[in-house]
């Protein structure tokens, strides 16, 4: 992965004090992410300024990526460049706030791009148009030109953090299953893309059936299940080198549903033998494995708590599948889901406070969230088949797969408030998304 250097744009701020008479005694622009209905905050992002000729080819693209990210949150609404009356021709010239107030913009993002050989330098500033104040310092990012989209995502994360006070989620990736071919003989490939659906790459060739990839906590490795041997087996792949190894391969067993522990050192997974499906833990360094559940039932779809001390999973030990939490040695298995219907695919939020799940009720499929004790269940979506939630790195957004009757599956995202349901672009039919952490 391309490394960035990041530093404040020092020395540029001095001549950039807020123009007298414009500054008002007012709290700076702040977006509170609440459960209530909010009116998206209007913002403007003119094309970035080219600081040399080579930078010119990125000025519009970077601004568009940022605008798309921020609009996609549902918290902000872009005022399109065609409506702008002001022009930003120099990154360091004072901003004419009246021009941006005139179009009712609340926030303004300005930036500049310079390209020197393989290196791209991106600078940006964020302004509260109403108070005429800059929000935070200007920031400069340096990186390789082929990582220009990542730099735009980094800027988006900075803007998001300055406006909401929360960490962003834009400089991240999604692994998923790219599907093609007829439903009766579906070709499935493990694929990886940026969170906005760009830069898709295929990690497996589709020769063997694959499903349910999962990112490691550092985003550099993935786990998935493949039928390469004719039987479902767990594989661990290094994303950069594409090297992979089979984990815990024992004849007569089927292994699937692997998930990393938060420290990346262990994998919890399901093993089916003689029709029973139990959960096991595998220590990657020692190869030691131990059994966590021991029932005749189906125990699967595990997910670690972010502190690494507990595992949530689904089990049909009492009939229809329900959600349970247990300790790392399998102790204290407590049912947490209490509502009607069947619950599956629990996923612990990165904040630790919520568990997302798939729920089947009255022939419909839903994505929902509940507290870790099962209380405050909230259903966020419904369709013919919604399945497999995965959390954004900041725990604000859930991505999942949706299949309407007779249609191919697509990826969708929804805020944990239940608002802002939207399609995540993919090159073709897609399922089983897993969201990476923020990239290093």
């Amino acid at each position: 992965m391309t490394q960035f250097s990041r530093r404040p744009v020092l020395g540029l701020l001095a001549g950039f004090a807020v123009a007298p008479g414009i500054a008002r005694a007012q709290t700076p622009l702040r977006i509170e992410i609440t459960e209530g209905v909010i009116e998206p905050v209007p913002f403007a992002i003119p094309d970035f300024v080219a600081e040399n000729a080579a930078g010119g080819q990125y000025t519009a693209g970077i601004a568009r990526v940022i605008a798309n990210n921020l609009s996609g949150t549902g918290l902000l609404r872009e005022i399109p460049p065609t409506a702008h009356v002001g022009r930003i021709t120099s990154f360091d010239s004072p901003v004419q706030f009246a021009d941006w107030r005139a179009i009712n913009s609340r926030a303004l993002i300005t930036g500049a791009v310079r390209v020197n050989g393989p290196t791209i330098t991106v600078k940006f500033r964020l302004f509260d148009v109403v108070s005429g104040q800059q929000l935070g310092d200007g920031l400069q990012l340096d990186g390789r030109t082929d990582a220009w989209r990542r730099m735009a995502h980094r800027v988006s994360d900075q803007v998001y953090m300055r406006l909401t006070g929360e960490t962003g989620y834009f400089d991240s990736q999604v692994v998923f299953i790219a599907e093609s071919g007829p439903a009766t003989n579906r070709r499935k490939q493990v694929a990886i893309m940026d969170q906005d659906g760009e830069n898709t790459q295929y990690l497996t060739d589709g020769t063997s059936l694959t499903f349910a990839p999962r990112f490691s906590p550092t985003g550099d490795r993935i786990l998935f299940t493949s039928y390469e041997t004719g039987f479902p087996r767990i594989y661990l792949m290094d994303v950069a080198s594409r090297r992979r190894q089979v984990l815990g391969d024992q004849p007569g067993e089927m292994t699937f549903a692997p998930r990393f522990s938060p420290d990346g050192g262990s994998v919890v997974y399901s093993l089916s033998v003689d029709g029973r499906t139990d959960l096991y833990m595998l220590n990657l360094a020692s190869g030691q494995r131990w059994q966590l559940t021991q029932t005749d039932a189906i125990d699967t779809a595990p997910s670690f708590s972010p502190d690494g001390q507990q595992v949530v999973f689904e089990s049909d030990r009492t009939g229809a599948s329900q959600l349970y939490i247990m300790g790392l040695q399998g102790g204290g298995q407590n049912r947490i889901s209490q509502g009607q219907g069947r619950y599956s695919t629990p996923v612990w939020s990165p904040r630790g406070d919520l568990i997302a799940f798939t729920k089947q009720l009255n022939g419909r499929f839903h994505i929902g969230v509940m507290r870790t004790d099962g209380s405050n269940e909230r259903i966020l979506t419904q369709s013919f088949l919604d399945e497999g939630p995965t959390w954004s790195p900041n725990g604000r957004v859930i991505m999942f797969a949706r299949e309407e009757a007779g249609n191919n599956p697509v990826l969708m995202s929804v805020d944990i408030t239940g608002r802002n349901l939207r399609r995540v672009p993919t090159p073709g039919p897609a399922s089983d998304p897993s969201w990476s952490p923020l990239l290093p």
Partner: protein
Amino acid sequence: MQILTKAILVVAALALAACNNPRGGDYDDPLTNGGAGAGGISSTALGDPNDPTSIAYFNQTIGDTVHFTVDSSDLTAEGVTVLRTQAAWLNRYPSYAILIEGHADERGTREYNIALGARRAARVQQFLIGEGVSSGRIRTVSYGKERPIEACAAQRCWDLNRRATTVVSR
């Protein structure tokens, strides 16, 4: 007339045998490929469906598939009848290796359905062993909802897709 009808039936059976070969297409077959999965495609001579020792006969005349009700791995009365016939045939021709594929309909989550298919395959395996088929000949695999036999968003297809198929090979 009778001869013509029979000829048509044989042709139809052969066509079905070709379509229904569960190891056609992208299936990796460890029993014939030794896990190598050369392109994921293997070929097996099905033989003449009128030859009672042939795979085609097993698939078409004996019946290679049993079905299940929603979220269940219990054998139906019909399923028991089919499996008894399968067991008798398998006991008569002990050189065939056996792979039982368990499947689920699409009305469940992916990993649960893998486990459910495994449970169904194991149920069939246990039944065949109970009928005297050597356990050493039998392997099981689950495809969950990944390989429906029919694709439609309706009960008709889901009923067909909740199944376990006994795949025999030499």
